[in-house]
């Protein structure tokens, strides 16, 4: 196997379907490529890690009306749902999920409302500590 474990650190700021797909496609692929992937969910991204949130994700703004059609096309091509993509990420054992503590406080979200796949509730310093050593950093 390769000599050094690569690291990827993403801020997941958006909770919309069109942004969450790239997040989970890159995270599952990164995990499959033996990279250590850290997903830091904040602001609207928090909606995605609330129980039932991935199922509720829509296209942004006025395009939200076309969400059903988009989901249909995604299904037709055989691309998994976001929930299935999350499971694929976990199966690689290389993808960690962090929730932003400040966002939780602002939006009044309790730990019980989050999906059990959330590894830790953390702040900016934890993300930056990970991101500063990462090979790939993204804000989605």
């Amino acid at each position: 196997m390769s000599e050094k474990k690569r690291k990827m650190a993403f801020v997941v700021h958006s909770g919309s379907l069109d942004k969450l797909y790239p997040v989970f496609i890159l995270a599952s692929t990164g995990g499959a490529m033996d990279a250590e992937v850290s997903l830091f969910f904040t602001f609207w991204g928090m909606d995605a890690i609330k129980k039932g949130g991935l199922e509720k994700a829509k296209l942004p703004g006025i395009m939200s009306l076309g969400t059903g059609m988009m989901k249909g096309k995604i299904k037709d091509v055989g691309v998994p749902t976001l929930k299935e993509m999350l499971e694929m990420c976990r199966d690689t054992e290389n993808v960690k999920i962090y929730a932003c503590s400040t966002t939780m406080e602002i939006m009044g979200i309790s730990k019980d409302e989050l999906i059990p796949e959330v590894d830790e509730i953390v702040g900016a310093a934890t993300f930056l500590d990970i991101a500063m050593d990462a090979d790939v950093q993204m804000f989605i």
Partner: protein
Amino acid sequence: MVNVDVEIDAKGLYCPMPIVKLKKATKTMTEGQIIKIVATDPGSKRDIPAWANKTGAKVLETNEGDGTFTYIIRV
């Protein structure tokens, strides 16, 4: 021709599925074993060598024909 230990059918699947399936299958394999994957996603031509490059696997053979791509990989 090498002996194939594990074979995966990824036909009709698009990114990231062929790579995710490849990783899942190789988890239970030991170093040096051979895996064969058949895909139809044209992206796999670049994606599978890229995956191999980062995981330490080696693509031994690539065959293209009839809209399918076949890869023989040493884990």
